[in-house]
């Protein structure tokens, strides 16, 4: 590394962090969080009376926590990140099991657990930790074939999917399984195996269509809008049209009044209506930039663990963004998923913060590699 980096690194932890962290990603994340806070103010359901900003205030409590988490994690070495992930994964699994016993039910699913007045969704914290643990297991197996990393990864996936399906949370099960397969693919799984997995995925999808009535209804309504109630997606599309290029202006949106999930699943439509297509395009570019920039950095790194972990974390981040935006735009069947850093929701914000903190930590330039 350059002499400049070396001297800066010696002066202080903060200085070293500043000169080694990927400032492009850092900047993109900062912009994303800022835009997210602005959109929450626009989209959060208004309560009448003194508590009008209830949702904004709640989110406002989580954002500093998320920022602190990102910063703290990004200061850590890859080894510490791995340790944090292992501990976090164990704790999250425990909480998920507890959720099944003592959780509270919302809209037919038991995903939340009440801690100190806040509803927590442990599966959101589990996701990034699981990605890092899987990356570790796969890379360890690759570097030392005697190490049963592959078997451990398969076993852990089984446990995670089991807990998710018991909640039930099929959407997250699919995302988790897809990312896991993606990591396997990156870890050098033979093409024949990949074809087999793809076949499994297709048959799983077909099975879900015929076995789960709500999946079937959503797909049917996507393929043939006349087949059922498409109120939400119609309103969302109208919102984008109302917004046009520059939007109707902050607070002028109507879609948030008619869509119950305007502050979570359909926040992209609120953004489109009030701030216009240009801001939405900017958001898409930001998401794409963060993902691709991270992939690029992971490719440059000569460590398989870093590559698998960063790619997994960013793939999850990008997939979530794609599903959310695609749903609101009638590009794919609707699937409730939060838009990272934009949608309302403390648990998902914390989960994403863990992801991005880990990405920043793992993509730091390693002066002298001595800090591992």
């Amino acid at each position: 590394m350059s002499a400049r980096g070396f001297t800066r690194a010696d002066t202080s932890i903060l200085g070293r962090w500043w000169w080694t962290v990927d400032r492009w990603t850092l900047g993109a994340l900062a912009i994303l969080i800022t835009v997210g806070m602005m959109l929450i103010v626009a989209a959060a359901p208004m309560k009448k009376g003194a508590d009008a900003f209830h949702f904004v205030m709640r989110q406002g409590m989580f954002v500093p926590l998320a920022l602190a988490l990102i910063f703290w994690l990004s200061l850590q070495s890859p080894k510490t990140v791995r340790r944090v992930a292992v501990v976090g994964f164990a704790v999250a699994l425990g909480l998920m099991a507890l959720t099944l016993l003592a959780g509270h039910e919302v809209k037919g699913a038991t995903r939340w657990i009440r801690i100190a007045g806040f509803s927590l969704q442990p599966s959101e914290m589990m996701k990034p930790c699981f990605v890092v643990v899987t990356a570790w297991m796969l890379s360890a197996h690759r570097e030392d074939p005697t190490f049963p990393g592959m078997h451990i990864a398969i076993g852990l996936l089984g446990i995670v999917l089991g807990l998710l399906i018991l909640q039930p949370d099929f959407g997250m099960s699919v995302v988790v399984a897809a990312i896991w397969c993606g990591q396997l693919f990156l870890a050098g799984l033979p093409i024949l195996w990949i074809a087999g997995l793809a076949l499994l995925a297709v048959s799983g999808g077909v099975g879900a269509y015929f076995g789960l009535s709500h999946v079937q209804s959503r797909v049917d309504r996507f393929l043939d809008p006349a087949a059922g109630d498409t109120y939400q997606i119609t309103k969302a599309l109208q919102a984008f049209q109302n917004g046009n290029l520059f939007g109707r202006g902050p607070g002028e949106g109507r879609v948030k009044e008619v869509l119950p999930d305007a502050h979570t699943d359909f926040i992209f439509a609120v953004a489109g209506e009030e701030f216009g297509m240009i801001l939405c395009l900017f958001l898409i570019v930001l998401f794409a930039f963060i993902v691709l920039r991270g992939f690029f950095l992971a490719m440059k790194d000569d460590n398989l663990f870093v590559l698998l972990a960063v790619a997994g974390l960013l793939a999850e981040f990008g997939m979530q963004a794609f599903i959310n935006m695609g749903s609101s735009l009638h590009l794919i069947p609707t699937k409730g998923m939060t838009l990272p850093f934009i949608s309302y929701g403390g648990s998902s914000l914390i989960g994403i913060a863990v992801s991005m903190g880990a990405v920043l930590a793992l993509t730091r330039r390693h002066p002298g590699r001595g800090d591992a």
Partner: protein
Amino acid sequence: MIRRKSAPAIVPGVDLRAAAEAARTAPLRVEGSAKTALETGRTRLAFAGGIFLLLFLAVAVQLINVSFRPDAERIARAAPRPELPVGALRADITDRNGVLLATNLPTVNLYADARLVRDPDRMADDLARVLPDIDGPRTRERLKSRQAFVYLHRHLTPAQQFAVNRLGYPALKFEDGEMRVYPQGGLFAHVIGKTDIDNRGISGVELRFDAALKAGEPLRLSLDIRAQTAVTAVLRDAMAAYQAAGAAAIVQDARTGEVVALTSLPDFDPNRPETMTPDAMFNRATLGVYEIGSVFKIFNTAIALESGKIHVSDRFDATAPVQIARYTIHDLHPQKRWLSVPEILVHSSNIGSARMALDFGAETQRAFLGRFGLLSASAVELPEVGGPQVPPAPWGQITVATVAFGHGISVSPLQVATAASAVVNGGVFHPATLVARAAEDAAPGTRAISERTSRMMRRLMRLVVTDGSGRKADVLGYRVAGKTGTAEKVVNGRYSHTAVLASFLATFPADAPRYTVLVALDTPKGTPATANFTTAGWNAAPTAGKIVAAIAPMLGVEPAADPFSGGDPKNGPLMVAAMGKE
């Protein structure tokens, strides 16, 4: 780094040949495999990156498509009726004959995109010309707001919409709306209730059947608009004539429990919000509970006869007031002699009723009042149902004695009518209902008293009208039977002698009752026509008579001679028959 643990890293300065040689040995084969894995990973990651780039490009293209090219055809297909608000198909409510009582009118609401307004003052003036009831200053303020969506006026008529369009302002826009309309005005106000501005039921059957109405299921009520019109007109006249503070009337099918007419005054017009004062909104027939007074002697007498402990010819000492603990029970018209069961009812003797009740006891009294539905809230399909105020068990002697003549217990007028129907219809209790049902769907009902007791009660109640306090309720040919009740109201914690609730329970025809009528007048005043009396015989009884005279022909009750009478009513065969062995 994990790599360093499994194999030594290639570090600068190591001899390349040594490294190449080392690559052939066993531990470094692993290193080589890891290297290959890294290369594979990099290639595949580039591939994954390409996929993500494509996905995000697809989102961007779709965003531009949706925002720029409003694909009208696809949007129209996506939403079969996007222009109509949710719940546009709220169903109609009709009376039992299918006459429309509540329906929906499609309307338009006027709004403005205030960003397009150039001259708010001129536009406000123009709007005020075509929509005279618009709020001028507020409209001006809204037009100046620069907001994309401001409501200006709800529910425009087609003519008004045309006039607004003719003004030619592009900023003025219309939104489809709907309005709940009650063609009969306030005639059914307390039964039907009201919807809010978003057409959700907020009272009456509009609230009780909100889900079904929203789902498009029409509601056919048991009410009959002809009877309702007649009852309301008679009651309104009576309320004015006796200067009462309020009034309620119920007509119920004695054989099925169906409510045919239900009026509570003062009432309101659901089309005119300014008429909806709290007093007018209060349903005196179902929500209000009152100490109903002597009408309760119907139930007391029926219980006495049904209990088997008391025979119709038994006599009770009414020579002097009854003392129970520190209370004294008086008669309003003291006869100062021993009275038979029919005489106790005809002369409305509190003393006699109390002595009868003390004879059959608290257990029997409670059991039968329960069977008459007087101890629990009416099952009628309204949200506005008042629960009865019943003294806590066990009932002591004073409670038993006062409940006998309708004091110490408060019930709603509808409960009284429903219980009386059970007494006269052959003894079967049918819960009150507001929904029209086919004869075969009618609830079977539960037996409250025997057929025999019911028959006797009809004779005794007919006697009250022919010989007792209910004479003014009689209608030639329709054989009205009934009972008066004048309950002193509690004013400032004491029973008042001037403020009363005057009521009359009528049923007709007495020989085979078809309908039960209950009239209640809240605090009527004495007038020259009533010889300054406020007792029920002078106001509620004639009102009930007028209602019977008006509705009996339209409900298909045939006039006939009185099968019970046939001699001098004073000491005629009815009284003899009633007292004689049966």
